[in-house]
């Protein structure tokens, strides 16, 4: 392939060379090249295959608006797909693959899709695959069969499956003024803002500042505009109040003037320095945002417009001026506005021949004619390109007369040889961020483009993003927008007098059969797809977008949006603003997930360990996670199954004594003169009558009458209580109480403190538990008189102060011993040592569960957000002497309905275990679907009863007692007979714990 590199020019380092591979083949370029410019310099014009039809595609643009040249970067096992070749800076060792081609870019088998082109038009998938089965080739099932083939044939790059080895960082930044873009507008606006002393951040998506100045043929302050821009940027970056971020794309605009940006810190380097991230994600909170984001050139839609070699006029100029690369040897232009003449002029300055300028307008200004004359280019006015000829890339164009008022083509086609066609269909200000911020874009008739709306947050738009298309007005607008009091002396500008207002021509529509005319290159949407959408009733832009997928590719229609709308507006015979436009969404350009995640990946949950955790582990505990807590499940011995272990532990509690870590219970310290009154309102039962030194079991409802939480609350003093909550509800209960104190009863003098982590708790249970305490507790008696049921005493264990409350979850004589969290393990070990002579056994959650199931005590499995106090047989706790949260709603008919599920016990009749979650049915054999009249909430083997038992919520629960039913679990293939019994399955009168 021949080199297209110009002998001189460009902002690349010609003295150095950089080696890289594209589809396995080695190429070289220079530092400063993008992949696009380096390949183009090497004579490569084919960059990829299109999304649906697998058409050969070359470069259309030179920047972030590029729809065609998407590539995959390969680095070991890691692939990064859909990177725009026009933004990818090359470095030594860069390896890149083209996409959506098989087996190779040059010889693509899927290009047969082109032959089936008319089948694959808009709505093809819906029409062919969705809906009921009518005939063999029409149904959702058919789609499911075809999907894998279609997915392979259509699409973009493939994502990798290897873990991303790179490091990403996140930054939060604050500034008075954020300037997005550093073209002429951004630089001057930033300079004006910085002069006021404001803290300024400038974000530039490209490696260097300058924007349009980098490829401009104008002269600024007597100098090359790229040099002027570089000096201006350096001066700004040196100011103490300015932070200049290059390679940084601002991709999102959110409420409160929060903007998000991605900085490509080391994507352009072969090796990262130690600790350097690949990318850095910025969240910038700006006092004011200046959007100096420039404008994107639009293509004109005409037949054959996707042929490699057909590019945007500005892109042809940029490759020549910025990178010293000739996109063609004999370049033609096709335009509806003056800016292509400036591109042609600049191209000629770079030493590239411009042969022809095709202009849809019947007449052009003297300045334009002068340029054509000087260049020696043939000027074809009132004409349009109506076709292209290509082998692998463009060889000739067809030009015909064109009447822009009627849109009619006439005359004999004339063939003009050219290897590159620069197209300009006018300019669309880049208003994506403003649109994201919430404003509705406004149509500008002069520019034939949408402009940013009135700001709804503190932002301004300046430069070509605001519709100023010549450098002089861009600079003066930017100075004012940067600071209203700006006294900047603006530079002089030498530029031809051109007018970028385009003629309102978006599409050249041929009369007869012609080549495809593409609107959205990345999603392969043609002008005829838009017409088809119209014929099939999809008229609104929102429908058009979704039916044809116009503008829904990764480029979000940067080049296709306005032409697509214009075509639909034309068909409907309405104006473009009446057709409306869709709102732009974040991100402006694709953002890697890694950058957003930053260092937040893997297991992000905190792990909560109790003070005695290490003891549990070193004593054989198998733990599992209960919420964020790690809790012992069982303390296993060799050769024991889980069931054997918890059975052994639970039996030890019933027959001797056991000890369990209860530090995870939620604990809230409640103090204040109105603490008792507060608890009376929060709990269904009375707490103001509770004597100091006693605890009481309490039940809380939600405002709607459903049970919220339960637990014991201890009165430590006249105005001080210690509330315990279930482990899982510690946070929600705290929030619930805070809400009522702050928002509903602010007059109550009560203060809440979460003390969950302050106390370590150990429950010792079993008939011998009192003996254990008697052995080790000093400073207090623990006999039935000193420490009756629900009593509280203070004493010492191992000379450490402890608080002991006699309460029972297991149904046995039991005590909870609380100490400062730092002493937890010492107290625990002292209790174990004291219990040794009584064969004390540590038990885990499984045994705890078993003991409570035997007793019919409820936990979160039964307090499931649907059950009432009556459902759980806790109606006795609902005070009739007072009101409380939920009291107004508990008597609603739905909550008293006799058909409600209520708590019962189950006993397995076939001596088989019962699965948690099983449904209660009346069918003897498994049947699907079956009428379920309840479900199992918890199940275990009960050593006390010698049977498999369960708790269940069953319809008409109480009246079902004594009846037989079946617990069925179709998922785990289990079905067995059970007897419905009272939920109090063991020690119904509670004599054991009161003893």
């Amino acid at each position, binding site marked *: 392939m021949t080199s297209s590199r110009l002998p001189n020019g460009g902002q690349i380092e010609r003295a150095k060379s950089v080696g890289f591979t594209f589809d396995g083949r080695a190429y070289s370029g220079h530092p400063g090249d993008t992949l696009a410019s380096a390949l183009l310099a090497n004579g490569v014009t084919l960059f990829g295959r299109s999304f649906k039809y697998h058409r050969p595609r070359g470069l259309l643009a030179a920047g972030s608006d590029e729809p065609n040249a998407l590539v995959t970067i390969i680095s070991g096992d890691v692939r990064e797909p859909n990177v725009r070749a026009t933004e990818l800076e090359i470095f030594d060792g860069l390896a890149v693959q083209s996409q959506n081609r098989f087996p190779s870019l040059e010889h693509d088998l899927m290009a047969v899709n082109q032959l089936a082109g008319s089948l694959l038009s808009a709505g093809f998938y819906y029409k062919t695959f969705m809906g009921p089965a009518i005939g063999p080739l029409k149904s959702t099932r058919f789609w499911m069969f075809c999907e894998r083939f279609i997915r392979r044939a259509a699409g973009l790059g493939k994502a990798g499956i290897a873990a991303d080895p790179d490091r990403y960082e996140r930054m939060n930044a604050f500034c008075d003024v954020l300037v997005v873009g550093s073209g002429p507008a951004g630089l001057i606006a930033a300079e004006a803002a910085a002069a006021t002393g404001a803290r300024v951040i400038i974000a530039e998506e490209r490696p260097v500042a300058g924007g349009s100045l980098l490829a401009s043929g104008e002269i600024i302050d007597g100098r090359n505009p790229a040099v002027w821009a570089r000096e201006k940027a350096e001066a700004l970056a040196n100011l103490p109040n300015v932070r200049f971020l290059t390679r940084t794309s601002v991709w999102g605009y959110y*409420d409160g003037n929060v903007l998000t940006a991605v900085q490509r810190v080391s994507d352009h380097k072969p090796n990262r320095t130690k600790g350097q991230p690949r990318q850095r994600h910025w969240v910038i*909170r700006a006092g004011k945002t200046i959007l100096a984001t420039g404008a994107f050139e639009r293509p004109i839609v005409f037949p054959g417009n996707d042929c490699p070699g057909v590019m945007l006029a500005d892109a042809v100029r940029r490759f020549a001026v910025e990178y010293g690369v000739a996109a063609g040897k004999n370049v033609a232009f096709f335009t509806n506005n003056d800016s292509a003449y400036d591109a042609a002029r600049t191209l000629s300055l770079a030493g590239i021949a411009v042969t022809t300028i095709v202009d849809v307008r019947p007449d052009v200004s003297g300045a334009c004619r002068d340029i054509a004359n000087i260049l020696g280019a043939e000027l074809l006015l009132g004409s349009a390109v109506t076709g292209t000829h290509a082998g692998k890339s463009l060889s000739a164009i067809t030009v015909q007369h064109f009447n822009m008022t009627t849109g009619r083509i006439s005359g004999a086609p004339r063939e003009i040889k050219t290897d590159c066609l620069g197209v300009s269909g006018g300019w669309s200000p880049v208003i994506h961020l403003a649109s994201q911020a919430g404003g509705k874009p406004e149509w500008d008739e002069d520019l034939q483009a949408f402009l940013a709306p009135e700001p709804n947050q503190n932002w301004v738009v300046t430069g070509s993003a605001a519709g100023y298309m010549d450098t002089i007005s861009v600079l003066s607008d930017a100075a004012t927008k940067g600071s209203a009091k700006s006294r900047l002396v603006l530079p002089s500008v030498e530029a031809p007098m051109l007018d970028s207002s385009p003629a309102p021509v978006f599409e050249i529509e041929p009369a007869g059969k012609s080549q495809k005319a593409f609107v959205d290159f990345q999603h392969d949407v043609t002008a005829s797809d838009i017409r088809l959408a119209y014929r099939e009733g999809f008229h609104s832009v929102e429908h058009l977008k979704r039916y044809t997928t116009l503008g829904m590719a990764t480029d979000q229609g940067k080049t296709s949006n306005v032409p697509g709308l214009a075509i639909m507006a034309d068909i409907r015979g309405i104006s473009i603003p009446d057709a409306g436009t869709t709102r732009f969404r974040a991100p402006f350009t694709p953002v890697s997930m890694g950058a957003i995640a930053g260092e937040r990946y893997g297991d992000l949950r905190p792990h909560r360990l109790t003070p005695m955790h290490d003891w549990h582990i070193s004593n054989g505990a198998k733990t599992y996670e209960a919420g964020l807590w790690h809790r012992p499940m069982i303390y296993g011995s060799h050769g024991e199954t889980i069931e054997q272990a918890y059975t052994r532990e639970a039996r030890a509690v019933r027959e001797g004594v056991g000890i369990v870590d209860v530090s995870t219970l939620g604990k809230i310290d409640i103090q204040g003169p109105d603490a008792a009154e507060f608890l009376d309102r929060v709990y269904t039962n009375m707490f103001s009558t509770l004597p100091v030194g006693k605890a009481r079991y309490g039940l809380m409802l939600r405002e709607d009458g459903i049970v919220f939480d339960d637990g014991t609350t201890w009165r430590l003093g006249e105005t001080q209580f210690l509330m315990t909550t279930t482990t899982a509800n510690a946070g929600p209960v705290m929030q619930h109480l805070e*809400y009522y104190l*702050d928002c*509903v009863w*602010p*007059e109550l003098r009560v203060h809440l403190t979460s003390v969950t982590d302050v106390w370590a708790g150990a429950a010792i249970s079993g008939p011998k538990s009192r003996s254990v305490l008697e052995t080790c507790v000093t400073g207090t008696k623990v006999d039935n008189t000193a420490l009756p049921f629900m009593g509280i005493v203070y004493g010492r264990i191992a000379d450490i102060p402890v608080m002991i409350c006699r309460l029972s979850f297991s149904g046995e004589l039991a005590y909870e011993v609380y100490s400062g969290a730092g002493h937890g393990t010492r107290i625990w070990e002292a209790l174990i040592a004291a219990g040794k002579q009584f064969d004390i056994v540590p038990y885990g959650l499984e045994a705890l569960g078993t003991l409570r199931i035997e007793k019919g005590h409820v936990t979160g499995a039964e307090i499931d957000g649907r059950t009432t106090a009556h459902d759980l047989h806790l109606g006795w706790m609902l005070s009739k002497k007072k009101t409380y949260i939920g009291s*107004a709603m508990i008597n609603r008919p739905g909550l008293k309905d006799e058909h409600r599920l209520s708590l019962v016990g189950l006993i397995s009749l076939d001596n088989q275990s019962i699965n948690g979650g099983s449904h209660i049915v009346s069918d003897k054999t498994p049947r699907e679907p079956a009428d379920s009249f309840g479900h199992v909430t918890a199940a275990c083997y009960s050593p006390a009863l010698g049977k498999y038992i369960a708790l269940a919520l069953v319809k008409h629960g109480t009246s079902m007692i004594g009846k037989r039913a079946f617990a069925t679990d179709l998922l785990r293939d289990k079905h067995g007979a059970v007897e419905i019994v009272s939920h109090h399955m063991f020690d119904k009168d509670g004599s054991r714990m009161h003893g």
Partner: protein
Amino acid sequence: MIIKCPYCGPRDVIEFTYQGDATRKRPDPSSTDQNLWNAYIYDRSNPAKSHREFWLHTGGCRQHLVVTRDMSTHSISSVGFARDSKHAGDQ
């Protein structure tokens, strides 16, 4: 969104928990008017204009705030402690 907590200063919304409509008034606790209670518990207004709502500064001072926020633009016009608020209280 940034909420200017009167105690902690301006903080990102991520630190706060939304706690619902602050314009509701809890009925008198002894009231048995089911319609009144139904409205309090289940009805929430969501006007496309300025609205008062409770936010709990969960990751900060743990105070409930009354935030007056325009529901269509998210702009916040005032923030105060719920405890100081006039509408709070039912007894």
